[in-house]
C-alpha cells in the first residue's frame, strides 16, 4: 500500500547512519587495537589512520542521527513513533531537545555523542595512550550503537531504533488506510515533568558525566593490558573532570527535583538518584587513591579497582533505570523496551573482562611492602576512599532490592521509611568524611612532623565555636528519629563546619596563599559548605501549612483516630479570595491564569506576614497531564531568601464549573432568632438601614436594608454575613447576597413579611461548588542556598585543579623536549 503524506527519507538516512556507526566503531576499535600492538612504526601508521578515520565516521554518524531525529521531532513528523510518543505541536521550541532524552534511544544517542567528543580530546592529547584508550572507547561506542540499532538477528531484537514508523510498531485500524496520517493530528506530547528548564541542561551534563567515567576506566584497562602503570598521571585530570561533571549533573537533577517535582525536596534516595550517586562516590575514592599513588607509591591496586568499578556502576545504573526492574520502587525510571538482556550484557561486557584482568595482574601491580605511617596523608586519604567505597556499596546493595528479588525469587520491599533507612547510616559517613576532609590536608605525604600538624589547632577551635553556636542557637531539633540521630546531626554539623574552616585556613597555613595550587582545598571547602547546607536544610525543614486552622477545616475528622506522629496532615485548603491563617502568614488564593505559551495554569498565592511587612506573591502552577493521563502535574514555586526558601506547591484544586442546581430554601425569622443549616446555625443580630460599613455595596440614591448575621459552624468558628436589599424609587429592588465561602453558604434577604412583628424572609443555599478552592503544601527550607553555593564552589575547585594539572604536565612535556 502507498501511504499518503509520509516522509520516509529521514528515517532511511537515520537507519543508514545507525548501521554505519555500528560498523565504523567496530572497525575503529579493531584498528586502534592493531595500531597499539604493532611493533614497528611503519606498520602502525596505516592502522592508526584507519582507526582515526573510522572514529571520524562514527562521529559523523552520531551527529547525523542527532540532526535527523531533531528534524523529525521539530517538523512534527508523527509517522515516526519517536516524534509521536515524545512530542506534540504545542511544545515550546526550548523543550524540543528534552524530547530526545525522554526516550531511551535519544539518551543513548546523547551518550554516544559525548563519547565522540571525549574521544577526540584523547586523540588530540593522550599521546602514547591514545591507541589503547581509544580502542576501549570505540568498543563502548559499538555497544551503544547496538542499543539504537533496532534490527533483528535470528529473531532476537537488538536495540531499539528511534527511526521506526508508528504504523510498523503498533496495530490500529487506521493504519489500513492510505491517508492514515491525516487522522493523526498531534503527538502524545512530552511528559509534563520534563517540561522544565532544568530538563534541558541536566541530562546533557549528567550524560557527559556518565560518558567521562569511561576515560579513567579505559586508562586503567589499557594499563592492565599493557602492564604499564604510567597512565596514572594523564588519567588524573580526567578523573577530576569526570567527578566534577558527574557531581554537577547529579546536583542539577536534585535542583530539578526541587523545582519541578512535588515530593518537597531535592533528594529522596530514589533508586534512580542512588544509581548515579554511587559511581560518583567510587570515582571520588579512585581520584584520591590516584593522588596517593602519584605522590607516595601506595594504593595503585585500589586505584585500578575504583576506576573499574565506577564505570561498571554507571553501566549497572543504566541497567537499573532502563530495564524496568525498578518499577515498584522508583517514581522515575525509564520504560522497559524489552532490551534487558542486552543491557545486562552491556554491563558484563566491561565489568567481567576488567575484573578478570585485574585479578590476573594483581600480583604484578607494584605495591610498597612497608606500611603507611599513621601520620601521613596517604594513610588518611586511603581510609577516606575506603569509607566512600563502602558507603556506596551499602547504598547500591539497598537500592538493588528489586534485583535481589529477581535473582533469588524473594519478595522483599524497602523499609517503611526508606529515606531514614539511608539517612541513619549515611549520617555517620557524613561525620567521618567531614572530619577526614578537614584533617587530611594537614598531613604531609609520607610523614608529618608533629609541629606541622599542630597548625590544625586554630581552625579546630574556630570550627568548634561556630558549630556550637549553630547547635545552641540554630534550633536544630529534629527529634522525630530519636536523640541518637539528633546527636549525630549535631556532630555532622561540626564535621561539615570543620571541613569548611580547616580547608579555608589551609589556603594560608598550608599553601601560603598560592591560589593556583588551591583547587583541592577549594573543592573541599565547597564540599563542606554543601554538606552543611544538606544537614541544616533537611533537619530544619518545616511544614508551614501544618495544621494551622484558620478558616480551613484542617483537622482530624471526628471518628478517626488522631494522627500518629509523623502522619502527614500537611495540606491546607484555600478558598479563592479568602485570607487563610497559616502560621506566620495570612495566605490568599487570589486568582489563576492559564498561560497559552506553556499551557500552565498559574495560581497567584498571596503571602502576608502577620508581623512586619514580609509580603510576597508566589505562583505555583499545574500543567495538564498528557499521554492519556487525567489530572495535573504540579510545579512548585519558591520565594528565595538568602537564608531560606519558602516553598509551595498545589496538591489539588477544584474549579467551580457547571451549573449550580441547588435551590434556595426560604426561612422566616426575626431579630435574635436562630436558624440552622447543615453544618451549624445562623443568628440574626440586627437589621440596619443604610449601614455605613456596607456603603460600597449600594448607590447613594438607593435605600439599603442590611441584615447583620453571625454564622456559627459546628466546629465553633464564627463568620459574619450581611445579605441585604437595595431599593431605588418605588419599584427597583436589588438583592445583595452574601456568602460564607468556607461553609458553602449563600444568604439572600428576600423580603420583610410583617413590619410590626419584625418577621423577615431570607433565602439560604448550601452548595458544593460555591467557589474555586485548592489545597497546597508549604515548606520552609532554611539554608538551602548553602547547598547550591557549596556545589558551585566544589565545581570551581575541580576546574582549578584540572587547569593546574594540565598546565604542569604541559610544562613537563616542553621541558622534556
Amino acid at each position: 500500500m502507498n501511504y499518503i503524506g509520509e516522509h520516509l527519507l529521514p528515517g532511511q538516512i537515520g537507519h543508514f547512519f545507525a548501521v554505519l556507526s555500528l560498523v565504523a566503531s567496530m572497525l575503529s576499535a579493531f584498528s586502534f587495537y592493531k595500531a597499539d600492538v604493532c611493533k614497528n612504526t611503519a606498520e602502525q601508521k596505516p592502522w592508526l589512520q584507519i582507526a582515526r578515520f573510522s572514529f571520524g565516521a562514527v562521529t559523523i554518524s552520531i551527529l547525523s542521527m542527532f540532526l535527523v531525529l531533531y528534524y523529525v521531532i521539530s517538523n512534527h513528523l508523527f509517522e515516526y513513533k519517536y516524534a509521536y510518543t515524545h512530542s506534540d505541536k504545542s511544545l515550546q521550541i526550548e523543550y524540543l531537545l528534552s524530547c530526545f532524552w525522554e526516550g531511551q534511544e535519544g539518551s543513548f544517542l546523547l551518550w554516544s555523542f559525548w563519547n565522540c567528543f571525549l574521544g577526540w580530546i584523547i586523540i588530540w592529547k593522550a599521546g602514547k595512550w591514545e591507541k589503547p584508550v581509544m580502542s576501549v572507547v570505540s568498543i563502548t561506542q559499538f555497544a551503544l550503537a547496538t542499543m539504537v540499532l533496532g534490527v533483528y538477528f535470528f529473531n532476537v531484537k537488538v536495540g531499539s531504533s528511534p527511526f521506526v514508523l508508528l504504523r510498523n510498531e503498533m496495530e490500529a485500524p487506521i493504519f489500513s488506510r492510505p491517508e492514515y496520517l491525516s487522522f493523526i493530528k498531534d503527538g502524545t506530547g512530552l511528559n509534563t515533568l520534563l517540561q522544565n528548564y532544568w530538563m534541558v541542561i541536566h541530562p546533557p551534563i549528567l550524560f557527559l558525566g556518565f560518558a567521562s567515567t569511561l576515560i579513567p576506566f579505559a586508562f586503567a584497562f589499557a594499563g592492565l593490558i599493557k602492564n604499564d602503570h604510567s597512565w596514572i598521571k594523564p588519567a588524573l585530570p580526567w578523573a577530576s573532570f569526570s567527578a566534577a561533571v558527574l557531581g554537577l549533573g547529579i546536583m542539577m537533577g536534585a535542583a530539578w527535583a526541587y523545582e519541578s517535582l512535588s515530593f518537597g525536596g531535592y533528594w529522596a534516595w530514589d533508586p534512580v538518584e542512588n544509581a548515579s550517586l554511587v559511581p560518583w562516590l567510587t570515582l571520588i575514592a579512585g581520584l584520591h587513591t590516584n593522588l596517593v599513588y602519584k605522590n607516595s607509591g601506595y594504593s595503585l591496586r585500589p586505584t585500578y579497582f575504583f576506576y573499574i568499578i565506577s564505570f561498571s556502576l554507571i553501566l549497572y545504573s543504566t541497567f537499573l533505570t532502563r530495564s524496568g526492574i525498578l518499577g515498584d520502587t522508583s517514581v522515575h525510571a525509564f520504560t522497559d523496551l524489552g532490551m534487558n538482556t542486552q543491557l545486562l550484557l552491556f554491563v558484563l561486557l566491561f565489568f567481567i573482562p576488567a575484573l578478570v584482568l585485574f585479578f590476573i595482574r594483581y600480583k604484578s601491580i607494584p605495591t610498597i611492602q612497608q606500611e603507611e605511617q599513621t601520620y601521613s596523608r596517604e594513610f588518611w586519604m586511603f581510609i577516606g576512599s575506603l569509607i566512600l567505597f563502602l558507603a556506596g556499596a551499602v547504598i547500591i546493595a539497598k537500592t538493588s532490592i528489586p534485583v535481589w528479588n529477581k535473582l533469588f525469587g524473594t519478595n522483599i520491599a524497602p523499609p517503611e521509611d526508606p529515606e531514614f533507612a539511608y539517612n541513619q547510616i549515611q549520617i555517620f559517613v557524613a561525620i567521618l568524611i567531614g572530619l577526614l576532609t578537614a584533617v587530611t590536608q594537614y598531613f604531609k605525604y609520607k610523614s608529618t612532623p608533629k609541629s606541622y600538624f599542630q597548625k590544625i589547632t586554630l581552625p579546630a577551635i574556630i570550627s568548634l565555636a561556630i558549630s556550637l553556636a549553630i547547635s545552641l542557637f540554630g534550633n536544630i531539633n529534629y527529634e522525630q528519629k530519636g536523640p541518637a540521630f539528633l546527636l549525630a546531626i549535631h556532630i555532622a554539623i561540626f564535621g561539615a563546619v570543620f571541613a569548611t574552616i580547616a580547608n579555608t585556613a589551609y589556603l594560608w597555613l598550608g599553601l601560603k596563599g598560592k591560589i593556583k595550587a588551591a583547587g583541592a582545598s577549594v573543592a573541599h571547602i565547597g564540599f563542606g559548605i554543601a554538606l552543611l547546607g544538606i544537614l541544616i536544610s533537611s533537619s530544619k525543614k518545616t511544614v508551614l501549612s501544618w495544621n494551622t486552622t484558620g478558616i480551613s477545616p484542617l483537622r482530624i475528622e471526628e471518628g478517626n483516630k488522631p494522627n500518629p506522629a509523623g502522619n502527614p496532615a500537611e495540606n491546607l485548603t484555600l478558598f479563592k479570595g479568602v485570607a487563610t491563617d497559616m502560621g506566620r502568614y495570612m495566605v490568599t488564593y487570589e486568582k489563576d491564569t492559564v498561560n497559552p505559551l506553556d499551557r500552565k495554569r498559574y495560581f497567584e498565592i498571596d503571602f502576608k506576614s502577620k508581623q512586619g511587612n514580609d509580603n510576597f506573591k508566589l505562583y505555583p502552577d499545574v500543567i495538564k497531564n498528557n499521554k492519556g493521563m487525567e489530572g495535573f502535574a504540579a510545579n512548585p514555586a519558591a520565594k528565595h531568601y538568602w537564608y531560606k526558601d519558602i516553598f509551595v506547591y498545589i496538591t489539588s484544586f477544584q474549579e467551580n464549573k457547571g451549573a449550580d442546581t441547588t435551590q434556595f430554601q426560604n426561612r422566616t425569622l426575626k431579630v435574635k432568632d436562630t436558624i440552622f443549616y447543615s453544618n451549624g446555625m445562623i443568628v440574626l443580630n440586627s437589621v440596619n438601614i443604610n449601614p455605613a460599613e456596607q456603603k460600597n455595596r449600594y448607590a447613594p440614591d438607593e435605600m439599603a436594608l442590611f441584615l447583620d448575621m453571625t454564622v456559627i459552624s459546628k466546629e465553633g468558628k464564627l463568620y459574619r454575613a450581611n445579605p441585604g436589599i437595595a431599593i431605588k424609587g418605588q419599584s427597583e429592588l436589588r438583592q445583595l447576597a452574601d456568602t460564607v465561602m468556607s461553609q458553602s453558604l449563600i444568604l439572600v434577604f428576600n423580603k420583610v413579611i410583617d413590619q410590626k412583628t419584625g418577621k423577615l424572609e431570607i433565602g439560604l443555599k448550601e452548595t458544593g461548588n460555591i467557589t474555586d478552592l485548592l489545597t497546597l503544601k508549604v515548606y520552609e527550607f532554611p539554608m538551602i542556598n548553602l547547598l547550591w553555593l557549596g556545589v558551585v564552589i566544589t565545581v570551581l575547585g575541580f576546574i582549578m585543579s584540572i587547569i593546574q594539572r594540565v598546565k604542569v604536565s604541559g610544562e613537563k612535556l616542553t621541558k622534556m623536549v
Partner: protein
Amino acid sequence: MKTTHIIILVFIAAAIAVLVQFSGDLTTYETIASAKAKPGKPINLIAKIDKSHPIEYDAVKNPNYLSFVAVDTLGNSIKVVYHDAKPTDMEKSERLVLKGSVKEGYFDCKNILLKCPSKYKDTPGAMKNNLQASN
C-alpha cells in the same frame, strides 16, 4: 597484619553489620488476606481501586483525608485511609503500591505509588486509545 588491613576488615564488618540491620527493616509485599493476618506490621500491598465504591475525598472538609476501597488480584478488598491529598489521576492508575499497615479493620496507608498506564510508559493500549480518539 598491617594496620590498614585491620581497618579494612573493621570497616567491611561494619558495612555488613549495617546491611544485616537493614535487612531487619525490610518489608514484604503482601496480599490483602495475608496483610490482615499481620495487623500493625509495615507491609506493601499491590492492589487497585475498587471502582464500585466511591473514592472519598473532600478538600473542603479535610484536605488530609482520603479513603477508598482497594482490591487485590485474589479479589479480597480492604478500606484504605490515607492522611494526605489525593494523588492526581489516581482513578486512572491501573495498579497501586500501598505502603502502610493494617489497623483495626482498615489499611493505614503512609505512601501511595501510582502505576499509571503511561507515566513514562508507552503502553500500546494507551496509545491505541489516543489514536482512535484522534480518528
